[in-house]
């Protein structure tokens, strides 16, 4: 278990125990430099509201807008994720919060809805997505029946729920959704201090969305420390991995021009080193940075609404204790016993800044090996068929990894489950084909229905120690109706990432670990859209011309000139009788037409 996540758990446990029946608010920021000049910043905001005041619509810290939506949609527990980029587990180690506060690329939403049956639950779900769509300025309203699944084993209730409620879990993903500032603004508005004070004041859209990886989450769940004392808790997090070099570039000159030749760090030990020849030396020193450099602003004092717990300081920095850190005057530094964590208190309405000078790294904050690496890619070529390849790599030499693999596929991707095959590669690099059932302990498969619902596949898998398991299956790409293609330029269709849920590997508690694969791009056979247009225009013109003249010839009655003049001379009565005669002729079978 990573130190970071254990720290978070510590928070959780501490807070849970301290949570009283009164509402409260707490916020924190953890900064941790990562290898390759990256910086992880984890913001956490948590507020409570007692169940009684929530039911009475009396909101203090809990955001009213969200509370009303949840009540309206009968939602007991809500999890919403906005994520961009991908977590580089190889360099950065395990995910913050063990992946529990992270979503798949784009927007992911799952919720437990109290409803008598599935139909009612789905109706409430639609209500929920539509409302959240408006609240968060995201296209959540596009989560329709084809994108909604009901996972069986992949997600667990976080909060404490009464046994009497009839909860339905619904899950939806929008892998193509672009997360940007319009999602951040409503997110900040849910906070009691609205990003004006406290650690939230660091959150600036420009810097936040320049991050290499970034995830925002909203979790709402009921928490009952005592059976009769329940409260509704909202937990908001923002996790970002910033590139220190990139963030330090001035905003008015962000172009990474080649550095001047005299500032180039060169390996002078090379024999060929000269004024115009330079083998670049990547410096091993820890980069210098400050909050102002990275975020473009300072923390503007503590949020006055936050509860001050004597032993919980809002800003924590995880660097070795021997590392030199300068802080703004007035802040109190507390060094934790683990040797890597130090925390700072904030003064109300006093700006807080934190500066770390460049220093040769002697010790590093240890990064744990991820429990499992997963990679999912589409293989094959051509527009008709393809294959999915999922690689699970267990780096541990001793423990097998058990996990639940959950994926949803859009209906236009039709998997052939009978082609599911597994190969296992040991550390010796020899691939062996084995029956998939050797790894798959349980499976839940719900096939797609065209234009109604997508495929849902949940597998309980076990990967042996020190080995790599590759699952492959083939699929077929459906041909869409031409109105089903997106109207504008598109690079393909996004397939939602797979979600992997592992039990905690230390076995002490059952807090799960989540990892998610990257999303996929599915190239469907795309027609030349200008062709139907051309065909329609051409055929319409031809048909209009042909139809016009033929219809005219068919409908028009041809008479001789004499008849015509006679007809013209006739009165209304005469014309009527003439028509009657014509009809009579027709009935008799005589042709009234004369050339």
């Amino acid at each position, binding site marked *: 278990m990573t130190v970071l996540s254990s720290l978070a758990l510590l928070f959780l446990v501490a807070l849970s125990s301290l949570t009283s029946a009164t509402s409260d608010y707490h916020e924190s920021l953890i900064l941790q430099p990562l290898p390759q000049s990256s910086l992880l910043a984890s913001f956490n905001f948590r507020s409570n509201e007692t169940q009684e005041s929530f039911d009475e619509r009396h909101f203090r810290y809990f955001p009213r807008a969200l509370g009303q939506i949840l009540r309206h949609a009968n939602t007991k527990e809500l999890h919403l994720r906005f994520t961009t980029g991908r977590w580089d587990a190889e360099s950065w180690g395990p995910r913050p919060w063990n992946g529990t506060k992270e979503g798949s690329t784009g927007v992911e939403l799952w919720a437990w809805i109290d409803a008598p049956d599935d139909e009612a639950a789905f109706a409430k779900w639609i209500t929920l997505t539509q409302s959240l769509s408006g609240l968060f300025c995201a296209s959540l309203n596009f989560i329709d029946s084809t994108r909604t699944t009901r996972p069986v084993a992949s997600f667990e209730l976080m909060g404490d729920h009464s046994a009497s409620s009839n909860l339905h879990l619904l899950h939806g993903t929008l892998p193509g959704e672009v997360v940007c500032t319009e999602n951040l603004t409503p997110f900040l508005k849910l906070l009691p201090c609205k990003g004006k004070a406290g650690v939230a004041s660091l959150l600036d859209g420009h810097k936040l969305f*320049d991050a290499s990886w970034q995830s925002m989450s909203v979790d709402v769940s009921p928490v009952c420390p005592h059976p009769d004392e329940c409260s509704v808790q909202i937990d908001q997090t923002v996790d970002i991995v910033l590139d220190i070099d*990139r963030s330090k570039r001035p905003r008015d000159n962000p172009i990474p021009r080649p550095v001047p030749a005299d*500032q*180039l760090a*060169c390996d002078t030990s090379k024999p060929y080193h000269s004024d115009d020849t330079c083998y*670049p030396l990547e410096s091993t020193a820890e980069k210098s940075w400050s909050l102002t450099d990275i975020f473009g602003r300072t923390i503007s004092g503590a949020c006055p609404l936050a509860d001050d717990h004597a032993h919980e300081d809002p800003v924590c920095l995880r660097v070795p204790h021997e590392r030199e850190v300068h802080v703004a005057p007035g802040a109190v530094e507390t060094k934790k016993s683990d040797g890597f964590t130090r925390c700072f208190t904030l003064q109300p309405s006093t700006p807080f800044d934190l500066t770390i000078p460049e220093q040769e790294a002697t010790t590093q904050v240890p990064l744990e090996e991820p429990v499992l690496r997963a990679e999912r890619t589409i293989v094959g*070529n051509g527009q008709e068929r393809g294959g999915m390849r999922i690689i699970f790599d267990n780096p541990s030499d001793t423990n097998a990894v058990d996990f639940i693999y959950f994926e949803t596929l859009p209906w236009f991707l039709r998997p052939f489950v009978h082609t599911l095959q597994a190969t296992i590669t040991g550390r010796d690099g020899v691939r062996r084909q084995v029956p998939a059932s050797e790894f798959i302990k349980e499976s839940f498969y719900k096939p797609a229905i065209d234009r109604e619902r997508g495929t849902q596949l949940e597998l309980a898998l076990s990967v042996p120690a020190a080995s790599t398991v590759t699952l492959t299956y083939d699929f077929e790409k459906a041909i869409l109706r031409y109105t089903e293609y997106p109207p504008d330029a598109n*690079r393909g269709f996004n397939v939602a990432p797979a979600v992997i849920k592992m039990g905690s590997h230390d076995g002490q508690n059952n807090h799960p670990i989540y990892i998610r694969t*990257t999303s996929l791009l599915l190239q469907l056979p795309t027609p030349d859209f200008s062709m139907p247009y051309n065909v329609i225009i051409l055929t319409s013109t031809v048909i209009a011309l042909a139809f016009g003249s033929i219809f005219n010839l068919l409908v028009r009655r*041809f008479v001789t000139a004499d008849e015509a003049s006679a007809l013209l001379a006739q009165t209304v009565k005469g014309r009527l009788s003439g028509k009657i005669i014509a009809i009579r002729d027709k009935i008799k079978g005589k042709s009234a037409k004369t050339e």
Partner: protein
Amino acid sequence: MATPAALPPLPFNPSRVRTYVLRLPLFTRLVLLAIIIFWLLELQTVWSVVQWGSIIPEEAGFGTMYRLNTYPFIHLGFFHAFLNVLALTPLLERFEAEHGTLTAVALFIGPGAYILIEKFVLHRNTAVTGASIWVFLLLGSEAIRTFKSNPYFSLGPYKIPTWTSPLFACALVSILVPNTSFLGHLCAILVGYLLGLGALKFFVPPEKILRWIEGKLNLLGRLPHYVSVDQKTYGRYGVLPTTTTGGERGTPMSFLGTSQRLVNVVGVAAAAAVSRPVQPTIPPHHQPNHHGTTSPNAPDPMALKSAVRKLRSNPHFLFVHLPHILSFICIVAGVVWLLLLPLNDYSRQTYISENALLPGQVHAYFSGSEQHVFRGYKKELEGILVGQTEEGREGRNDEFTPAVSGKIQSVLKAAGLKVATQNYEYTSSGLTHQGQNVYAIIQAPRGDATEAIVLVAAWKTVDDELNLNGVSLALTLARYFKRWSLWSKDIIFLFPPDSKAGTQAWVDAYHDMQPAFVQPLPLKSGALQGGLVIEYPFDHRFESLHILYDGVNGQLPNLDLFNTAVSIASGQMGIGANLQEMWDHNDSYEMRLQTMMRGMVKQGFGYATGPHSSFMPYHIDAITLQPKGDGWQDEMALGRTVESLCRSLNNLLEHLHQSFFFYLLMQTNRFVSIGTYLPSAMLIAGNFTIMAIALWLRTGYYPYSQQSPVGSPVEKPTKEEQAADPPKTSNDTPKPDTKNIRERQLALPLTLVVGLHLLGLLPLYIFNHIPHTYYNPATYTTILANAVLPLLLSSSLTLTHGLSTQQSHLIKSFSLLTLGLFLSALATLNFSLSFMIGLLCAPLSFVNRINPHSVSAPLRHVLAVLALVLLNLLSPPVVLVVACAYFGVDVESVLTQAAFGWDVWGVWTQVVVCT
């Protein structure tokens, strides 16, 4: 006399068309000839015929009066000429037939015409060319004539005066055909009306004078096809002056009569189109060898008449000679079509079709201290290479060594990229190619791993030179690109040890399609959107960029990618761009043609021209950039070009799809698209199909009596084939049957054709599996087998089964049919290959069995041997040897040659079958 009833009915009677064409009067012929000659003259570029002969009002004067006579003969292009010829022929023929040649000459060319034409021409500004003026003039006068006899169309209640019809035609033409002079046509029609109304009678020279001239010069006797002034008294249905009876009048003329009733230009064109293919070739080709003595221009009227009759009732011509002629025309037209393509009228200027690319719209910053880094990397790599040379005595041209691979990995890792390696091993032709690909991925800072661009720098270029600068440049670029945050797609840097196998192994593994001896990739990214290959195998500065774009099996990258590269190199960076090794391209016709031909040859062979070629089968567009020449551009300029190209590709929202995938490039900024060049290969493929159908038709009927004087014609003895056994053929001849339809014996020919095609798999297998050292003997063995196998086969066939004429025709028919089908299908995929094979196989259409009755035995044998030698010369192995046989020693060539081999062996079987 052969019985025409024995032949299948045709939708129209071609002999009538032929008659019609043969009977075109003198002046009409001359006009048509002049038009064609002038059109051919326009093909050369030295002397602008259009400039010389068209009417340009500014240049009107006494010195340029000749223009008034020349402009109708001069056209602006093939289609202009063709359409006008179609439309003019029937009209002019009719006019001349009615008014006499002399009158026509006098009216259309001569002082009278000046006044006629001046009226409607000189007040216009544009240069006037083309015979369409005449067409409309004649149409106008015809319309007046029709109006006199038949004043109205009645369409419903409306009555439309018939004299308006040329106006409709004129309007239609000006709408449908671009760049037509509506006003000019209108004026022509007006004058035509005047002529038809008789208002211009005074221009017509007095009949007396004409008669006098005619009589004095004895024109009627001297000139063939001359129409006398007297002739006009016969009216339009008059027969040729030499014919005395009107007995034959009804049938042959009805065709003309009906067609000429059509006042609409379209109608006329349609009718004339029927006559067209035969028209230009019949006189030179047919008259000498078919008719011989009974040419229609002989003075004896009876002889002429019988010749005409013979022609009409001569099925031999229709089913034996006509297909030959048609096939020949197809081939000639196909080749001529191809030769026309480099002209400005048929090729197009390139353009960027995908707007998202925005080539050259960004500033490229790759310069300054990056060059120091570049030198540093280069020195570092050089150091390792030198060390290798000293230690292992392996030299710089050896395999990609682990030390180099390790250095590249460490450099990339230091730059912060994700690095992985892939081992591969290919065995082909007894040679083993193994190596290790190193590749690294810059993960797009905010990307989701769904798309990627590939940058390839191979250690060895296509020409097997050490690509040290290219690899160093790629490493520097990797370090430089890593700093940018704007990438929306991952960028993959691939360093294969060679240019052919390594890239192929990597791309195959990327799509999980790799063979067993190629490792799967440990690290992957999203769908590949584009590929760039950098080659810089020398140390000095370069002058221009050579862009390679041909893929495996003749596949091409999207034209937009090529255009982007050209526009960035020449537009943004000021580096010239070349293609197809044309270093001094001066945009002349010859240079364009040469460029196009080189492109076609490469496409036709279909082997990989560089690392980029391996990407094409996976629908990944890729090109290779090769610096060439000695100039002042340094590696940083190449780096900036690559940077700008990557920025353009990074902009792409969709996979490259907007522009063409099928094109022929003839200059960096000119191309021909598939719609324009495809007919060329299709015509050539069509010639086989025509022959096959004709042979099929022939086999359904008994050969008509050999004693018939008409049937006697010799099948052209130039390219005869091996003789069949005489007794069988003579057995066939004396079968008098009232019903001439007979069953086809399909079993033997079908088996033979299928079997021989399958036999083609054998050399394919052998050549792909034997070690390369045995290639030479194998080739010669194949040549020998080629020579012997047909002889054995045919003799054994004739001895055991008794191969009848019908069966041999069927065999040929089937093989030609397969060939035709195969080539036309292939033309849509690989135009150049289809075209080349089509040309190589062209003689097959004209190969026949020697008629044992007509040729003496020694001559027959000589001919047979000659033909055999000829065909063997055309067979693939010989072509291969003659063309300095390039045998694929490495994987790519073998792989591509396997694909190519299929086609080649397909052809080879055709050769076997037809002998």
